[in-house]
Structure formats: C-alpha cells, structure tokens
C-alpha cells in the first residue's frame, strides 16, 4: 500500500492539453474519486498514473518511488498498480481462475500458493465456485467482481477504477457500490476512482477531485464540495447548483457576509477574509429557495416550466428582474405551478464563491 503524489502533471496530445498542471496528493489508504464531465481529462489522468501514457511535464510518485517524470516512465508492469476497467477487460480465452491468477502466473508464484490466493480472492468477492467458468458465462456484476479479484490478488500498492459501474444497470450499481466500499474497508488499499457520476463519487470517496478541461477544479471532501465550491464550475456542476450574481455589502465576520442578491438582502457563508465587492457570485441549492411569506424580503419570479417527478414537482423559474437567470426548486405535491404564473421567492442561505485562486 502506498500513497500517490501527482505534481504539476501536464499531458499533451499534439497541441491539445488533456491534463493541465494537475497536482494531487492521495494519502495512503485513501479513497479518492476523480469526477468530471466527459472529456475533462480524468481518463487520461488514470492512464498516466497506470503508466500507459507518458507525461509531458511534472512528476508522479507512488509511495516514495518516482514512476513518471518528463524524462521517463516506469512501464505499467513494474508499477504494482491494479486496474478495474469499465468493460472489465477479462480475457475470454481464460477461465475465471486463470484470469484472477494471471499476475501470479507471470510472477512465477508457486502453483499451490497461487491456487490458494486465487481462491481467497474469489471468496473475498463472493465468487466461490465460479473458478472454472468462462467470462462469457458470467453476468455483468459477476464479471466486475472477477475484475476486482484479479487486481486484488496481486496485492497492488494502488488500485485504479475506470468508471467501473458505467456498464451496469441501476440495480446492480447500488450493490456494486456497497461492494466497493466494503472492499476498500477490508483491504485498506489506496484507491483512485474515475467516474462521471456524482452520486457514486459522493457515496464512496473520502475526497473528490473535480476536473474541468484538463485542470483540477477542486479537491475536497464530498461535504465541502457541496457546501463550499471553490469556483463557478464546481458550484454549478455539483448537485445542479444555482449560481447567482451578488453584491457583497460587508466584510467577513464569523464566516458570513451580507450580500444583495436579486434585490434581496441575504446572509451567506464565505471564506475568511472576504471584503465587500460588487461582481461576486453566490451558489445556492434548491432547498435554499423558499416561497416568501407576506411582507418578507424576497423577489418575484415567473414559472417557466413544471416537471412532474413522482411525489414532487421540479419548478423552473426566472426572476422577473433578470429573466435570463434560471432557478429551480423542488416542491412537494400537490401544488399547481402554471407556466407564466408569478411566485415570490426568498433565498435563505448560500455560499459566496471565492474570488480567484482556491485557498
């Protein structure tokens, strides 16, 4: 087991930077999710960590060993890294046991020892009795477990997951998520988990690295990511946050500032040291929007669309004063929200998106 240190890594394809100046530190035994929309560079990041791609500049260390820098790269077979691929990548010409025991065979581990370790790995992922099956005769979930056992058996220092649940149906996803969490708990392996699914990342990871256009947008715990996004991209990407322009009226005091948003005065959370400024942005979540009572501070908004969600209604609105902004709230049934009708809303809370570089 070992930590992973990525320092100022850039990977260029032609004149396109797939990964730009990314620095990450994964602690020994940590479960880190790398989250981002497709094309954000997360898969490239995984491939440079595994050693399938060389980096253009920067440095990657696994434990204390430098495995990649601009001048060279340790080949993948010498990195002791395990990978679980999205399409499982099980070898069709080998049985389950042969698949799992492959790295032991390559390392010329004694046959009897290898057999025992394969059996242990298979029972760890609840696949006892399937050792002699062919991958073609397994279900999707079983294949994923074989892939898990395969990377487990070699006791790798680091396990990389490349969107491992993307090919499974919703049902299986939930149970495999539990499986991965249990796997992490049991083995204490350092895990880097690539995904585009926020719910998955939130549920599993100790920390999440959000990537955007090849850059690291924010690295934080799931809770901080949700509550205190470091920039607009993260704010709007995570849990469909709503980003609104605001004017900061007071200096930070006890983690809060007073701000004017859509004509309403709101107290929002913020980082220490914030000063009054005009062109600020705040991030609010749908629960932060409530229907204003009589005489309360708030603003008028027009309903543009109401979508029935089963048990609740997602109402989309635009402020009357700034119709180019889009808001949405979830309201329980019943309740009629005719498009075109007006509602008075109030913002109850929010987060001031920091200016410039992340702290």
């Amino acid at each position, binding site marked *: 087991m070992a930590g992973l240190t990525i320092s100022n890594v850039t990977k260029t394809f032609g004149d396109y930077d797939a990964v730009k100046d990314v620095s990450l530190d994964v602690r020994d035994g940590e479960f880190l999710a790398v989250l981002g929309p497709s094309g954000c560079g997360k898969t490239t990041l995984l491939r440079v960590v*595994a050693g*399938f791609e060389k980096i253009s500049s920067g440095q990657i260390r696994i434990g204390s060993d430098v495995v990649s820098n601009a001048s060279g790269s340790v080949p993948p*077979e010498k990195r002791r890294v395990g*990978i679980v*691929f999205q399409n499982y990548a*099980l070898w069709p010409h080998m049985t389950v046991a042969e698949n799992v025991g*492959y790295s032991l065979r390559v390392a010329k581990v004694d046959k009897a020892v290898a057999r025992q370790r394969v059996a242990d790995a298979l029972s760890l992922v609840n696949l006892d009795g399937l050792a002699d099956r062919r991958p073609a005769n397994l279900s999707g979930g079983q294949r994923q477990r074989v892939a898990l056992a395969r*990377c487990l058996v070699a006791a790798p220092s680091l396990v990389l997951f490349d969107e491992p649940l993307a090919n499974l149906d919703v049902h299986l996803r939930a149970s495999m998520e539990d499986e991965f969490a249990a796997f992490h708990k049991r083995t204490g392996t350092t895990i880097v988990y690539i995904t585009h699914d926020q719910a998955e990342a939130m549920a599993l990871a100790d920390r999440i690295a959000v990537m955007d256009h090849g850059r690291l947008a924010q690295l934080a715990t799931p809770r901080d990511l949700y509550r205190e996004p470091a920039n607009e991209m993260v704010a709007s990407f995570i849990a469909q946050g709503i980003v609104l322009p605001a004017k900061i009226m007071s200096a930070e005091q006890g983690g809060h500032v007073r701000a004017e948003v859509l004509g309403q005065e709101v107290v929002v959370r913020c980082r220490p040291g914030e000063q009054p400024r005009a062109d600020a942005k705040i991030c609010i979540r749908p629960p932060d929007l409530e229907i204003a009572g009589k005489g309360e501070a708030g603003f008028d908004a027009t309903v543009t669309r109401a979508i029935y969600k089963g048990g609740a209604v997602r109402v989309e609105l635009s402020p009357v004063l700034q119709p180019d902004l889009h808001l949405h709230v979830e309201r329980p049934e019943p309740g009629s929200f005719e498009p075109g009708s007006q509602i008075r809303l109030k913002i109850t809370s929010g987060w001031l998106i920091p200016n410039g570089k992340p702290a």
Partner: protein
Amino acid sequence: MTARVKESRGQEMALTAAVAVVIVLLSLLPMLRLLKEVVAPGGVVSDTAIRLGLSSSATWVATWHTLVVGIFGTLLAVVLGTFVALLVTLTDIRGRGVLVLCYVMPLMIAPQVTALAWLQLFGPASPFLKLLGLAPPLGTRNPLYSTEGIILLLGVQYGPLVFLLVRAGLRKLPRELVEAARAGGAGWFTVLRTVVLPLMTPSIMAAAALAFVSCVGNFGIPAFLGIPANYLVLPTLIYQKLAGGGPAVLGEAAFLSVLIGVIAMAGIVTQEIMSRRRDYRISSTSLPAEPYELGRWRLPVEAGIWLLIVLILVLPLFGLVLTSLVPGYGIALSSATATLDNYRFVLFEHAGSRRAFFNSFALSIAAAVFAVLVAVPVGYLIAWGKQRWVRLVNLLIELPYALPGVVLAIAALLMFLRPIPFTGIQLYNTIWIILYAYLARFLVLALRPTVSGYHQIDRALEEAAQVAGAGLFTRLRTIVFPLVAPAAIAGGLLIFMTALSELTVSALLWSSGSETIGVVMFSFEQGGDSNYAAAMSAITVAITFVLMLVTNLLAPYLPSGVLPWRD
C-alpha cells in the same frame, strides 16, 4: 391497390430471379457437372473414374507432394505473415503505410511471375548474380527447382494473405485486454504469449486455412519450379494429363480436381474444428492498444523488416527486370548488352504475345465490368435482403473462388466441351469459355467490398427514396448504385489486376487464338525464352503497381479494408 402491390412485388421477384440465375449458371451448375462426371460419367452411376484415379501411382505421388508443399508452404506463410503483422500493428515501427504496401505486393503479383522472378534471381544465368560475380557456372541446376523452392515461394506468395487477416484481427483487439495484463505485471513478450497470440488464434487459423487452400490450388509456382524437376502436384498433374491426352482424359482430370477440392475442404474443416475448441470471442470494442515502444531496438527491427522486403520483393523484381534487359540466355548484363528488344518483341513482333495482351485486357475488363454490375444487386440482397437463403447465395458465390482454380477450369471444360444444348453455340476452344470461368471465379472479389460498402450505408437513404415513390429498380439505379459504386469499382479493379496475368484457369482452357498473358509467359519460359517471359512479367507488374496506386485515389470513398495494400 393490388396492381400497386403487384408492381413492387414484381420488381423484387425479378431481381431475386436474376440473381438466382446468375448464381446457378456461375456456381451451382459447374460444380454439379463436375461431381456428375466423377460419380456418374456418361449418366450412369459408376465408380470407374474413382477407381481408375486411385489405382494410379501418379495420383498418390502428386497427392503426397500437394500435401507436403501445401502444409509447409502454409506454415511458412503463417510464420512470416503473423510475424510481420505483429511488428507492424503492435510496435512503434515507422513507415507503416509503405511497409504494408510493399509487403502485400507479392499477393498482387501472379504466382508464375513470382516464380519467374525468383528463378531469374538464383539461376546460373542470373544477370543479378553475374553482376555480383557470384553466378554458378552455366548448366548448374537452379536451387529453386526443388520441394524447398516451391515451399519457399508459396510462403512468400501467401504470407501477405495471413498478414492481412491477422492484422485485421489485431486491430480489433481492445487495448484493455493488453493493459490489464501489463498492470498484472506481465512484460511485453509475456503479454504476447499469454494474451495476444491466444486471442488471435481464430484469425491465425482462418488465415492458415485460406493460405492452405491457396497453396494446394496454386498452379504457377509448381508449374515453373516443379515441372522442370519432375516434381508434380495435383494441379500440374492435371495440366500435364490434359496437355498430353486432351478431352479423352477429362474423366480422370475431373477426379483429380475433385481430389484437390476435397483436400482444400479438409483444410477448412480442420480450421473450423480447431477454432471451436475455445472461447475467443472478444465482446467489447475499444481503441487499439498503444504501440509498444521498441526503444533502442527500433532501428535494428526496422532494418530487419526492410531487409525482408528487399529479399522477398525488391530483389526478385530487380532480377526480373535485369533478365528482361538481357539479349539472350546466359549473357552478362552491361551497358553494352542491355536492350529493350525483349519488350519490343513481346509487344509488337510475336503474334501470340500481342494477341495475349489484347485477350487478357479484354477478358479482365469484361470480367471486372460484369462483376461490378452483378455485385451491386447481389450485394443488395445479401446485405439488406431479408430472405433466409441469402447466406447460401453468399456461400455459393464464394465457392468457385475458394476452391482451387483447376477445379473450376475442369468444370467449365466439362460443361462446354459439347455445344450448349438447343442453341448449338460452341464455347469450347474459344475465348468465351475463359471469360465464363473468370466471371464465375472472380465475382466474389467484387462482391465482398460491395457488401461491406452496403453495411456502411445508412439504409434510411434508400428508404427515403422509397417513401418518395421510387420503385426498386429506380432506387437501385439512382440511389444505391452511386452510393456503393466506389466499393464495387474497387472490387472491379481488384478483379482486373488478378485476371490480367491469371494462369491457372487459362492454362487449361486456352486454345490457339485465345492465349492469355499468363499462358504465353508460361510457354516462353517452358521453351527457354526466359527473357521474353521476364519482359511480359515486368509489364504486368508495372501495370498492377500503377493500378494499385491509382486505386489508392479511391480510398477516401471506400470502407476500410477494401484495398488490401492500403494501411
């Protein structure tokens, strides 16, 4: 309503019927006629032909020889082709496009031209060896007149065939399967041995079967290398029997050709059985693996592979050209002796070879045009048709090409020896019988690219025309043909190149006045006029090469894999 239904049904029926007629005429009929001759000569079931054939010791010797050169030629082709495919596909070797073009080139050159070129390179009269001062004394036996010589050239000729199939397989290998092995600690050679090669087994097996069928049915190489050494294989035995005995020995020849067919089929069946033993299905699709970095080995490996190209392509062709420039057998080439007389002779003076150029051009063009026109409707039925029997259609069209050429040639002889019933038209001893055999044999070369062309076209394009009111024939003409035309025409060019210097079929079917380039080349060589044969070969190789390059211009409009020499 009913009238409209009738009209659309009518067009579909007409298309289906036309396709059926073509297939019956070109595939079913000749094969049945051949079988009848063996099982029931003269209309009465009898085992005379079989018994006669089996009792002849020549049959057994030739069968043994066929198996020996077939098996070892296949082995050599598989080793060479797989090796080059692995290097070209999986490593970061440079100049891949040119390499593929050069390596596949021998496949586009007629086998007898390959044979001639190699003979000219190593013989005692070799202008090349004379230039180097290495030529053995005149009268020394050419080392290629031997079993090993035949095996070597078969391996060189069909290595590219294996290469193409294995390369296609390697390209479908998802990179994760390789990467998972490397992450598991396996070095490159271990990955190759435990993952890549096992997964390529089906491709290699299929390639081996195809190479085996080609080796067993090859006429040009054993004819040029084996006949002088009196080393006969089944195709050359048939040729000698027919050349000596004429139509009287047709029954025996029919038996021998069926024997070749059986051996070829045995190869295919073996492959089927071997491939079924394990599960090699690759279900996922993905990007191909990153090329393996050869590092400091890159230059030596590149040098090695180009040396191979020089050995199997450049030197033989160089030898061929040198021979074509020498005024006579055994004369050393120098600036004083070099001459273009041989070219002048074969192009303008010798009546037979002049006719042969004309005949071969006419035959190749006719076969190509016909095949393109037929491939479009047949491909339509195969690719888009819903009928169950289309798979059978495909198989039937493949058959005359999959079976050795000798088989089809004998079948054509049997069919047309007597005038066609009711019409009194005589095809035997005319050029038309050769044309018939070419049409039957080469149709599939145009059909394959056309079908893959169809698979790339969105069917909605045709359906839109249908909604717009176009009937089947109108759609075929105005929508479908223009869309698949590039693929079909590429197939037509392939046919032209193959038919231009074809020998196997025409050697058995030609008559005075209907000589082909291959036949005249063969008779020059048999008569000791290697210089003339070399000049003719050089011309056909040049034409083939130019056509390959011209066809490359079509490449942007073609489905990938249609042009074998294009990477």
